[in-house]
């Protein structure tokens, strides 16, 4: 049960004084009685009450006595007022009796299946029955029964017999998520949570209803009957999926993660998280690498001992020195990304490092170095909540950063926020935050931005997809400066914001320091125990350039960490690069097509088996501790330190403490930052009948590597369809609900068409769902021209 802990009592004008159980309390005006009682340590039992939902006073469990009122009153719905005298169950027989009466009512129809119920052991009904219930039931007629469970979605199951009709789930779905798929139906004792036929509970936030259900009425398919709460060990962690930075609670039993819950954090995720963060952790036990492998002279990969594998890796890198590129994924912890940044410069003597295993550009790395690095706290969740004007550029909050979506929705529900989105169409997510869409063809973003009336002092949120179209990020900077707006970049992956800070980019050193600035190199060198001149001064190659150089033979070796070839902007090119170099080291948690190609494959620890920090989109550090301690998994940083040692370097970073100490010594950079990009935008590509401009983004739930093995979750993916305007479809003789083939010289995707209101001459498809795999099948990106034609069955 969530307790509020707002203890700031500064403004006495807004304070009121009242009496609860004979004790004088001072609380801010508007504080509900139930919360005021909590603050003085008295827990008034409750079911329907939830601090993040509007009061309904339906369950009647929290009745208390208020002087001057003839009947007991629901403390969850009545604010404490000046001079009010309240008696809770601690001092009032009336309140105690009223609560006992409600508890007795709640139990008459409740099944006695606690021993097999998921909630048993952590159940508010069970707990409160112990304090407010009677030992023996006086009810001896037939209990109400329902068939059970009902599948609300592939992930969420409903047991109507256990339900106490508190409506937390339905209120959450409507008030918070904006997905009112479930609703109370029928009346009286037949009242029940229900769902429409053929409209499953496919909300990205559905798992929260399981967590806030005060009984075992809602359970998840993936956890149901799997374990007992009292067998679980709980550890606070941070979600590794997106850049929202949710606090989580990871529950494990016998070294296996059994479930994850949202952990209350008022500044970030409040009481919620998304279903991906909650349910997608099966990857931890799928295809795990546990043993280093080296490729022998005969070409076979064999298991190796750690010291041998490290020496082998070190030798390979030594042979290729100065001709090694470092390709990273976007989910490394701050600490690990820092280790790669340092390793590239000191051990490999190169700036050829890039974490952007996705659509990216040279313009973007200048943007990241000049605008994003060192800008922590420019925009926060709290800022979004009280914002007046927000502009979204190439950013779908619900798909790409769901907690940002929830906060924008909270602001939208209050009604004071005006959200404008530059997007090809009004998505369901944008609709739920009352956004106004400026229908834009990919490639026209810069032009549209410059022509748009944007309010002064707005907040501009730009997504990572802005890198796909030339000139967009330059235009965003220009517009932000012109309107004195705050600009924030929201990547999709948890590690990207941290990777910017530690300089895992070809033009950047840790702490927003440009590699080209000699004083920057000196400052960094001082911390690293080397001369500034020992750090390469020439900007290195970025992701695409590293791959090109490898293919051209300019690079001899690649260090690849934490990435999947299928996520690469051009998987084919990456494959070619790997084949072209002499030596490949991979570091990762799972075996995949890359690790199988490696000369040395080194297993590293997943988030559950190490400590670390993610920096969320706000720039807020989200440190977490090690949940599972019994394995001998090593962090990337530790492995790099061992290789460096083998190379004869004094690398440091042997422990996380040492690493964090070193990171904290960087301080802020006062010198010249990177120059902001001023790239001229081109117009969107020309199209004619038979082709269209591609628009695409990753849906929150897709076929990503970290969602593997979780079929219940996968069942709640959005339908896989292509979108097109009526006109575009008609021009190309395509019909709604029919198949359309989207192709280019690389390959094709066949997908069902759903005509919607959107910008003309554009076709939108999801990036990575089922057959719609844009990167591996088309190698294309947003703004590219693709061929469209009618598909056959």
């Amino acid at each position, binding site marked *: 049960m969530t307790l509020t802990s707002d203890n700031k009592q500064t403004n006495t004008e807004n304070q009121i004084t009242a009496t609860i159980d004979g004790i004088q309390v001072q609380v801010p005006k508007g504080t509900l009685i139930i919360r005021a009682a909590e603050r003085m340590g008295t827990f008034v039992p409750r079911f329907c009450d939830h601090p993040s939902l509007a009061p309904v006073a339906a369950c009647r469990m929290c009745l208390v006595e208020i002087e001057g009122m003839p009947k007991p009153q629901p403390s969850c719905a009545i604010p404490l007022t000046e001079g009010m005298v309240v008696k809770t169950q601690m001092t009032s027989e009336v309140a105690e009796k009223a609560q006992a009466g409600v508890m007795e*009512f709640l139990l008459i129809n409740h099944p006695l299946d606690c021993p097999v119920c998921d909630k048993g052991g952590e159940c508010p009904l069970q707990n409160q029955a112990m304090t407010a219930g009677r030992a023996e039931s006086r009810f001896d007629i037939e209990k109400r029964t329902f068939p059970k469970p009902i599948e609300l979605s592939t992930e969420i199951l409903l047991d109507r017999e256990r339900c106490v009709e508190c409506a937390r789930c339905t209120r959450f779905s409507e008030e918070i998520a904006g997905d009112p798929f479930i609703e109370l139906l029928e*009346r009286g*004792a037949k009242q029940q949570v229900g769902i429409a036929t053929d409209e499953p509970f496919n909300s990205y936030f559905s798992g929260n209803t399981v967590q806030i259900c005060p009984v075992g009425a809602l359970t998840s398919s993936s956890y149901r009957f799997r374990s007992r709460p009292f067998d679980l060990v709980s550890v606070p962690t941070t979600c590794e999926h997106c850049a929202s930075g949710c606090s989580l609670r990871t529950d494990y039993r016998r070294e296996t993660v059994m479930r994850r819950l949202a952990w209350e954090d008022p500044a970030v995720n409040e009481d919620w998280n998304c279903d991906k963060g909650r349910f997608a952790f099966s990857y931890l036990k799928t295809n795990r690498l546990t043993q280093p492998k080296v490729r022998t002279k005969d070409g076979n990969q064999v298991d190796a001992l750690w010291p041998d594998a490290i020496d082998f890796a070190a030798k390979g890198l030594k042979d290729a020195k100065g001709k090694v590129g470092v390709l990273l994924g976007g989910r490394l912890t701050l600490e690990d990304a820092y280790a790669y940044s340092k390793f590239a410069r000191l051990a490999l003597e190169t700036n050829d490092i890039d974490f952007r295993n996705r659509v990216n550009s040279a313009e973007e790395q200048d943007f990241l170095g000049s605008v994003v690095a060192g800008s922590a706290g420019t925009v926060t969740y709290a800022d979004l909540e009280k914002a007046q004007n927000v502009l979204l550029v190439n950013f779908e909050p619900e798909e790409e950063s769901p907690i940002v979506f929830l906060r924008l929705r909270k602001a939208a529900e209050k009604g004071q926020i005006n959200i404008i989105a530059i997007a090809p169409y009004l998505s369901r997510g944008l609709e739920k935050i009352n956004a106004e869409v400026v229908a834009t063809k990919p490639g026209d973003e810069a032009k549209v931005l410059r022509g748009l009336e944007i309010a002064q002092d707005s907040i501009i949120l730009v997504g990572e997809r802005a890198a796909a179209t030339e000139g967009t990020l330059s235009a965003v900077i220009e517009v932000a400066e012109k309107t004195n707006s705050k600009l924030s970049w929201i990547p999709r992956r948890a590690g990207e914001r941290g990777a910017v800070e530690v300089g895992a980019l070809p033009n950047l050193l840790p702490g927003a320091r440009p590699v080209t600035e000699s004083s920057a190199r000196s400052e960094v060198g001082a911390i690293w125990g080397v001369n500034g001149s020992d750090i390469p001064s020439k900007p290195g190659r970025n992701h695409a350039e590293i791959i090109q150089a490898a293919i051209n033979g300019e690079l001899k070796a690649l260090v690849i960490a934490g990435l999947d070839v299928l996520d690469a902007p051009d998987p084919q090119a990456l494959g070619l690069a790997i084949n072209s170099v002499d030596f490949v080291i991979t570091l990762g948690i799972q075996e995949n097509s890359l690790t199988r190609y490696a000369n040395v494959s080194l297993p590293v620890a997943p988030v559950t088996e190490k400590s670390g920090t993610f920096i969320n989109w706000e720039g807020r550090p989200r440190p977490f501790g090690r949940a599972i301690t019994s394995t001998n998994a090593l962090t990337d940083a530790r492995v790099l330190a061992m290789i460096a040692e083998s190379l004869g370097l004094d690398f440091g970073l042997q422990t996380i403490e040492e690493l964090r100490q070193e990171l904290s010594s960087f301080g802020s950079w006062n010198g010249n930052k990177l120059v902001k990009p001023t790239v001229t935008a081109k117009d969107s590509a020309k199209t004619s009948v038979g082709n269209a401009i591609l628009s695409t983004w990753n849906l929150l739930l897709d076929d990503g590597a970290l969602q593997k093995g979780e079929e219940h979750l996968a069942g709640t993916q959005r339908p896989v369809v292509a979108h097109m305007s009526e006109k575009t479809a008609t021009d190309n003789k395509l019909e709604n609900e029919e198949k359309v083939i989207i192709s280019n010289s690389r390959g094709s995707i066949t997908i069902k068409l759903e005509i919607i209101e959107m910008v003309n001459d554009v076709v939108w498809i999801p990036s990575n769902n089922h057959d719609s795999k844009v990167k591996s099948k088309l190698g294309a990106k947003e703004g590219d021209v693709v061929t469209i034609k009618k598909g056959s069955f």
Partner: protein
Amino acid sequence: MQNKMALTPVLTAHWDDPKSFEIETYKKHGGYVALKNSLKMTPDEVIGIVKDSGLRGRGGAGFPTGMKWSFVPQNDGKPHYLVVNADESEPGACKDIPLMLANPHSLVEGIAIASYAIRANHAFIYIRGEVPHVIRRVMNAVEQAYAEGLLGKNIQGSGFNLEVVVHAGAGAYICGEETALLDSLEGRRGQPRLKPPFPAVAGLYASPTVVNNAETLASVPSIILNGADWFKSMGTEKSPGFKLFAVSGHVNRPGIFEAALGTTMSELLDYAGGMRKGSKLKFWIPGGSSVPMLTPDHIDIPMTYEDLAAAGTMLGTGTPMMFDHTTSVVKAVTRWLEFYKHESCGKCTPCREGTYWITGVLEKFEHGKGKEEELEVINDVCGQIAGRSFCALGDAAATPFPGAMKYFADEFREATRTSADASFPPSATTIFDKAGV
């Protein structure tokens, strides 16, 4: 019975006219003059007269009507709404529906006057869905009033506009609760709303709203026409005016008797032709099943809000149900509880679960299978509902049993051995089959 209080036909004055429901008939007897007079006054003057008259709500709670109107904030820039609660569904209550059937224009005129007073340009009549013939009649009356310029734009050249919508409910008792009615009217599932905010501040579509019972509004034109003093000349100080009393049950001439408040039950029973032949009054309820029952000992209590409250019951809807000696109290209470169980909206725990529980136990008693100690349990359960439920439906459901136990505890004890049908043969009690009497 001597010096019997006279009937005071106002609303019912012309029900015997073959076309009592037509606008011509209504106008012939002075209809719509009150509206025209009102439009010449200021809205506050109209509220003043209604306040002075002391008219109290006829839906059951008896809240002073003029005061309710004056709660609507003025010059708040929001639209105001008048909503007519014509969802008459209380077991035993049958007065709004005949009123709307026989004299719908008194309601329409009352709506126009009330809307003018509270500065509403939109009024809704929420009629229970099971009475389509009444809905048709009210719609017809509204249409006639529009046709004569008594509703619509610029009524009678006054500049006052009023649109009236007739809305059919879908047959849920809870929608007679004013906030549930508003939710239902807005297209939602009918469940009571959390108060505050009260409807006068944020009612229909979150705007200031007055919800009045149909009979209450129908009484307004006569007050405007004849003055507050005329109205107060009838009834008592705290319960002024006339009222429709709908007497039903084991009486010879069930029907609606319009009389001054303060008329006694024995007088009303007299008008209803007394108890049916050979039968003796056993118990009665003054105004719907939601008010506690009384016995023949209480038959001379004046039918007023205050006198009935003093006797431990309420005037309620003012629709007495009379039960004779052939009636099983156990069975009557069980039927009422089954009603409340069926109609409980399910929102709050005490009402939802409590009615389920009580009904289940009472059904055992009805079949002679109750256990004596269970009477204490039902009593406790009623105590756990009363004053703890979300709205008055729960309180109402907790009323019949303790009321019955007060006077007929022995009959419940007998029901631990003998079924209700054995003690009170149904053939004797039915009012359609005279064989038993």
